[in-house]
């Protein structure tokens, strides 16, 4: 378990970019943390680290966005997923087999379906408004 604090959304993006350099393809990155914690900013940085310059935005309505770079990234938002049937019909289990990198916002909602070797990143609010504490498990940044 690694703990890293960022002090702005720019720093959060940089952290994502650094983590991207460690990826080998096929990883599942489970993000935990509520509204405004920087999950999308982190994913934007991570995508940039994989040479993805398409607009990265939260897939709240589409459930999953697909970006192509060094690896294909499947960016999920599980906010509205409330049951196994919902999850099955997002194609989540098929994406696990795809060899791409999965980044999952609102992993809280599907915790029992996450692979055992998933990289887990929990984001908490720090002491100041723009301060975020990242608890990272499963990879060294």
């Amino acid at each position, binding site marked *: 378990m690694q703990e890293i604090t960022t002090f702005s959304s720019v720093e959060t993006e940089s952290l994502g970019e650094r983590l991207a350099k460690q990826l080998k393809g096929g990883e599942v990155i489970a993000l935990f943390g509520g509204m405004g914690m920087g999950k999308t900013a982190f994913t934007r940085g991570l995508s940039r680290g994989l040479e993805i310059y398409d607009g990265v935005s939260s897939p709240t309505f589409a459930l999953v966005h697909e970006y192509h770079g060094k690896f294909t990234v499947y960016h999920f938002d599980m906010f509205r997923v409330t*049951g*196994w049937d919902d999850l099955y019909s997002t*194609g989540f289990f*098929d994406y*696990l*087999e795809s060899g791409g990198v999965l980044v999952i916002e609102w992993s*809280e*909602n599907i915790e*029992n*379906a996450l692979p055992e070797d998933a990289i887990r990143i929990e984001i908490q609010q720090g002491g100041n408004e723009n301060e975020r504490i990242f608890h990272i498990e499963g990879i060294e940044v």
Partner: protein
Amino acid sequence: MRILAIDSSATAASAALVEDGKVLGEFYINTRLTHSQTLMPMIDNVLGCTQSELSSVDLFAVSAGPGSFTGIRIGVASIKGLAMARNKPCVGVSTLEAMAYNLELTEGTICAVMDARCQQVYNAMFHISGGHLERITPDRALSIEDLAKECENYTKPLFLVGDGAKLCYNNQWFKNLKAVLPPEPLLYQRACGVAKEALTVYEQGGAVTPAALMPIYLRLPQAERELKKRLKGEKK
């Protein structure tokens, strides 16, 4: 009777053209390429290489489930479209029954299993003797452990087949049952197995219109469990 059959229910995909039981041609690939990129070229090639016109096909067949959500939808939608354009009948078969035909030559019990993730499988059991396949259970989803316990009661030898076969074979419960793992070429569902099952269904009057062809989803047994880990004191 000429049947065009496809399977895209899991990682592998295949397309076959079968006439009166004879496999005129079959394409099979087992890569991580998406079915939306490979299935139509395979259908096109199996027709092209056998110098057959699409209009010569009498029946369109597909493995309609269980299987991967996107895979089943791609397969069913493809067959629906082809059959609708020609106004020909369709048959959607059980993926598990189609793969059981791989082991037609064996004697004993066939345990068809597909990986449904989280230690759960899609399964159906068949008795096989003298080339005659007899279904023992309906298609269902259950845990590997429950399946193994049930398998204690069936006639041996017990043959595994499907993309969950290795998963079960490496499980201690199945090791105790001395389950048999077939060689790789016989391990996964194939379009020619889909065609074989489709002919049986057709002869029993089970063909449907393209509009009536539907995917078959099985409810996952883990649906009984919570998907979300709840925090202490949090209300349901």
